[in-house]
């Protein structure tokens, strides 16, 4: 018992020691200006990637950074790549490692990397940390955190038009009578909600009576789960399978079903799916990440202010759809071009409040609170603004923050799980 007491006492002392060091104020960092110009020749980029080139989403980022760097004359050896970094403390360690290596701008590409990047950003105020798809740069109070997210909802809307044209063709020739669309989603999170709503509205602009069911996989990348979800949706009668998950699971499953006589077509994400589904794939919604990377790096090199949020859609060539598949309906290209032109000149808004209802009613207001919550969601972590997102007859997506925040559950879409 005495020994136990001794151990406990020692432990107490250690904890007291720990507490003491906590109360002493940390020595302030040199007040380095995060916007201090770094000449292009001196720039050293760190890249933290959740996957590698074998995974579509990460591949798009790799290509984006490579292209942006090449356009800016940044050499290969100025970029440090870190592949397959999980969204755990490993990400923080990797960010610190890159910082210690002398990188002056560090990117990460998965949403879950963000909190670890922010922690590193706190410690290295002279280095810019860019967690792509993140949502706290504007509210976390650190000058050196930057978020980037293209207007993916625009390319999803356009890919929805491609799907809508196909659905219309199938209905016109009598092959399909029930305009049911399926969607394989990763998580019921705003980014996904925004994406599938835009996709659905694209379809609805061609086939007004279309309705959609969404099956979540609880994973951003899982071949089997996505394949199973696609099969489940097809079994329910879905003739179009859209997706917001990163693997080729769904298109492959649709291709196999199509070969066996089921009428079903796939709209992919990130990468051209024609390789895995030459007959079933119609197109894929894509992001042109190089545009955002180019803009950020250029601003950084030129010593301009690196603002907190970087976004852009068709007007900046930051989003696109992949080449149309052979199965696409006649006239698809024209419909696509018209939609893109409309989005570019501002006559077409994806989240036009005239095109959807919530609970049977038109929506006229949505005040979004950009604050984020703490670990147990009991209190606010970072205080953000409350902004009215619906003005001029449409929901302003990705304008007040690059990460999507459209979260209305519109009529016509059913979540299956």
């Amino acid at each position, binding site marked *: 018992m005495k020994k136990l007491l001794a151990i406990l006492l020692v432990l107490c002392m250690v*904890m007291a020691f*720990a507490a003491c060091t906590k109360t002493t104020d940390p020595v302030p960092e040199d007040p380095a200006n995060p916007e201090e110009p770094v000449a292009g020749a001196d720039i050293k980029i760190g890249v933290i990637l959740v996957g590698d080139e074998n995974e579509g989403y990460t591949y798009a980022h790799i290509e984006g950074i490579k292209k942006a760097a090449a356009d800016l004359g940044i050499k290969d050896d100025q970029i440090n790549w870190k592949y397959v970094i999980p*969204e755990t403390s490993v990400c923080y360690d990797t960010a610190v*490692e890159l910082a210690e290596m002398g990188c002056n701008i560090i990117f990460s590409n998965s949403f879950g990397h*963000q909190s670890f990047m922010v922690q590193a950003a706190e410690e290295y105020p002279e280095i810019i940390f860019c967690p792509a798809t993140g949502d706290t740069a504007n509210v976390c109070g650190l000058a050196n955190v930057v978020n980037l997210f293209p207007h993916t909802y625009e390319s999803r809307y356009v890919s929805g038009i491609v799907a809508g044209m196909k659905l219309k063709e199938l209905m016109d020739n009598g092959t399909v009578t029930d305009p049911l669309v399926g969607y394989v989603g990763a998580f019921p999170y705003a980014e996904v909600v925004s994406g599938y709503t835009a996709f659905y509205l694209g379809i609805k602009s061609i086939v007004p009576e279309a309705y959609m069911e969404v099956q979540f996989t609880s994973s*951003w990348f899982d071949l089997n789960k996505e394949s199973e979800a696609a099969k489940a949706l097809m079994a329910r009668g879905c003739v179009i399978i859209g997706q917001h998950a990163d693997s080729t699971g769904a298109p492959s499953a649709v291709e196999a079903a199509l070969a066996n006589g089921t009428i079903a077509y796939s709209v992919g994400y990130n990468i051209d799916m024609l390789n895995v589904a030459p007959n079933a794939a119609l197109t894929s919604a894509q992001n042109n990440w190089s545009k955002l990377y180019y803009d950020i790096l250029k601003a950084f090199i030129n010593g301009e202010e690196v603002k907190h949020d970087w976004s852009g859609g068709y007007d900046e060539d930051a989003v696109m759809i992949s080449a149309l598949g052979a199965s696409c309906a006649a006239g698809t290209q024209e419909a696509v071009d018209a939609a893109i032109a409309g989005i570019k000149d501002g006559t077409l808004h994806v989240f036009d409040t005239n095109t959807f209802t919530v609970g049977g009613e038109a929506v006229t207001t949505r005040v979004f609170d950009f604050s984020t919550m*703490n*670990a*147990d969601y009991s209190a606010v972590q970072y205080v953000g603004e409350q902004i009215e997102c619906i003005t001029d007859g449409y929901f302003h997506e990705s304008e007040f923050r690059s990460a999507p925040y459209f979260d209305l559950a519109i009529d016509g879409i059913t979540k299956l799980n």
Partner: protein
Amino acid sequence: MKIDHKKEPIIRISKRVGIQFWKSWLIRLAAIALSLCVCALLIFALSGLNPIKVFGTMAKGVFGTQRKLMNWVRDTSVLLCIAVGLAPAFKMRFWNIGAEGQMLVGGIAAAACMIHLGNLGMPNVVLLLIMASASIIAGGVWGVIPAISKAYLNTNETLFTLMMNYIAMQFLLFFTPIWEHPAGSNKVGIINSVTKVGWLSEDQKLATPLIMLFIVLIVTVLMFAYLKYSKQGYEIAVVGESQRTAKYAAINVKNVVVRSMTISGAICGLAGFLSVAGADHTISEDTAGGRGFIAIIVAWLAKFNTFVMILIAALIVFLDKGAIALASEYSNYNLTNDVADIITGIILFFILGSEFFINYKIKFHLGKGKEEIA
């Protein structure tokens, strides 16, 4: 007199009766040197780079800056803590390969306290003590379950402790969506990133690693003394040598097994606390990240001498970090993370292999009368 060497086997292996301390370490050092030569060949073959420069990069990658040095201290502390925790179990020949799970439940307990008690406004010391106790208890419980089963039902502890790892992992998967932060990430994220409540120290650069090292060194010294000088430590040694002897000496084997495994699990649980409160501030599958298994190598190589474990843990963490540094420095020269892992593997292989030459003598019979002893 003529001996017919043809009937002799070319290689004859015999057990060494005893080996001098310096000789065994000479063999170990030779093994490390040899492994570095093999690695150098591999590096040169793959990249064409000067291997000595590459090794220099490795050292610089681990000790180059204060921050790197401190990360090395931090990771060494955690690995050492697990290895020290394994010592009583393995010394008693109880194959505890469940350190991974014991550490993970310790981490889960710490994270739970951090998340759910973090907003009650209690002093950080109190919260840290609660977290540490919760981790120690959780780890102890995780360790004692297979021990009780072994002691009273004679189940296989290797399988049981291994299976407990998977259960711990499932627990983590169960809690992850509950503690998910931010929503949609499906990860726990950094806990209390603004308030820093439940963090060992706000200073990640210096204070945290040193506090962790301090705690672990205390545990290391205590464990050394416990195993070497206490009656219970002696009982562990006897049970490890022969259970029959232990019974004959009126040692209650069941008690020893249960008691030692509780201690073993509790210290592994403490490692989970250190990882969560000190290094990570989150809980994930990387909290243990295979260190529960690497620690077995540390414990074995050190022959359960906790002071030797300090050296071995430091070496293994050095290799691991050096390999990562190497991969990031030379990723354009074919030296990727995978090559880095191969290098670590080669060095570990040689170190483990050297134990064979310490335990056994090898005689070569080459032709007439020639004898070489390795």
